[in-house]
């Protein structure tokens, strides 16, 4: 039987660009280039490796976002995913993690799945809670923050490196997995992969397709509200000295003046 893998990916503003907020205090996506969240590349990579090990597997990449978000899907398809699902709806603008997770859960259920793989966090919101929320919504085990992951005989196993301990985890499928940046370097799309991606199917869904009311999502339907966003004042220029043989002592003098010594 085919192993159905759904990889959730996010289209995010480039962290090296000048990220800021729009007037409605949502993330401004117009003035900065977007791309597939780097941490989701690890999720795609692990999906590809798990699919390689399985007798028969199909990888669907899923995203929720505006038209541009198709770029993130194309990247994942060019890495080797089989097909894509794009949830796009004008009413989704400003949706927070609770709404996004609702949309993803409905889309995952509609697509059908045995294994959901996510990155550990997005590189814009960086909350790191979506995989756990998806597991809660789908009612399946969460096997999260894995640095190693494998699937065999309907069981997913993985290693979680926590603050206090390293844990070996296992759960029966279906399950939600998230992987860290320690899970293995993501492959670059080959030219062949990029050409093949153009022919792969991208299914578009809107809120009606998922039986979600507009008031459950979007800025108005959000479960949290941002009241203000202030740019951090630029740091005042610090003192910079060139080491002429006394640099360590000078630094110690500074630390002493600040009462750190």
């Amino acid at each position, binding site marked *: 039987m085919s192993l159905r893998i759904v990889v959730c990916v996010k289209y995010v503003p480039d962290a090296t660009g000048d990220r800021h907020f729009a007037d409605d205090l949502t993330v401004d996506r117009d003035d900065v280039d977007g791309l597939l969240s780097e941490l989701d590349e690890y999720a795609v990579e692990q999906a590809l490796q798990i699919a390689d090990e399985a007798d028969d597997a199909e990888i669907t990449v899923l995203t929720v976002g505006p038209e541009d978000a198709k770029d993130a899907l194309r990247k994942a398809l060019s890495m080797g995913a089989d097909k894509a699902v794009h949830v796009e709806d004008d009413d989704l603008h400003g949706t927070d993690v609770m709404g996004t997770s609702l949309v993803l859960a409905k889309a995952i259920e509609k697509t059908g799945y045995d294994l959901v793989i996510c990155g550990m966090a997005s590189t814009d919101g960086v909350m790191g809670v979506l995989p756990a929320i998806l597991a809660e919504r789908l009612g399946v085990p969460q096997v999260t923050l894995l640095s190693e992951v494998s699937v065999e005989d309907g069981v997913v196993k993985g290693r979680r490196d926590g603050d*206090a301990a390293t844990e070996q985890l296992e759960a029966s499928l279906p399950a939600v997995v998230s992987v860290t940046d320690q899970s293995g370097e993501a492959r670059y799309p080959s030219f062949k992969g990029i050409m093949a991606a153009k022919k792969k199917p991208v299914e578009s869904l809107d809120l009606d397709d998922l039986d979600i009311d507009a008031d459950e999502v979007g800025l108005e339907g959000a*479960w949290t509200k941002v009241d203000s966003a202030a740019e*951090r004042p630029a740091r005042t220029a610090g003192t910079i*000295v060139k080491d002429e043989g006394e*640099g360590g002592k000078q630094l110690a003098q500074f*630390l002493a003046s600040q009462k750190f010594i």
Partner: protein
Amino acid sequence: MAEVLVYVDHVDGAVRKPTLELLTLARRVGEPVAVALGPGAEATAATLAEHGATRVLTADAAEFADYLVVPKVDALQAAYESVSPAAVLVPSSAEGKEIAARLAVRIGSGIITDAIDIEAGDEGPVATQSVFAAAFTTKSRVSKGTPVITVKPNSAPVEAAPAAGAVEALAVSFSDKATGTKVVSRTPRESTGRPELTEAAIVVSGGRGVNGAENFALIEGLADSLGAAVGASRAAVDAGWYPHTSQVGQTGKSVSPQLYVATGISGAIQHRAGMQTSKTIVAINKDPEAPIFDLVDYGVVGDLFEVVPQLTDEIKSRKG
């Protein structure tokens, strides 16, 4: 006054510092009721009472250790239903965030993660967050349900505020899903004897310029002279010079100490995302163009193999 649930992060009864900070913040929005789970839960009560917990709800069961996250969500939900709090505060550890998030779904509430401050507002607690690699500071609130907020370490002072801290057993019935993810084995991390990275008042980090695992002894020597934790940039971790658990940055730990010392670190955006809220920043780097120098209060352009040993010796001699 309304009660506020505070989830307790502890190791065998020893309460970790971020939980004590959380009690300081909780007192601004209500009366703290602590929830301590697992082995040693009751032993946390004295410390929690000393820092303001009016009640301490405790539960222990094998499920907390044998299965991932969900048993703790079941317990926190039981506490939520018994207390009907005005807010739920949880430390922003990896596990804390997952527990908080699943609870929020169950109780139909919004969630705010990684707050760096909380104050009382007209419409409930207002959380301050630092976003986009600390380029912006936002103020947010939960607009549906009971606010569930996770708070980063070093966000508030630890204050003594003696309260009753009455211990009460929490009745927990585990859900069907509690045993879904089995913890097959657990290997505790070996203690370095140094402070925990995310909680430390001073952090000394090494990067690409350290140029080898063996040279990290130099960074550790400097850290020990200051009583600091040791961090590493992603470049140093990817090169295998230092463990991933010490990685500071977007995909590693986010730190906000009183003093951050960056040695041999250029200061890529991904690293800055994890340390830019440090109160005082100093750097040692031989490249005068390194972006880290844009952030520093004090920077030394020089060879770290000369500057760091001199600095360490000077600190030791000043401390006598």
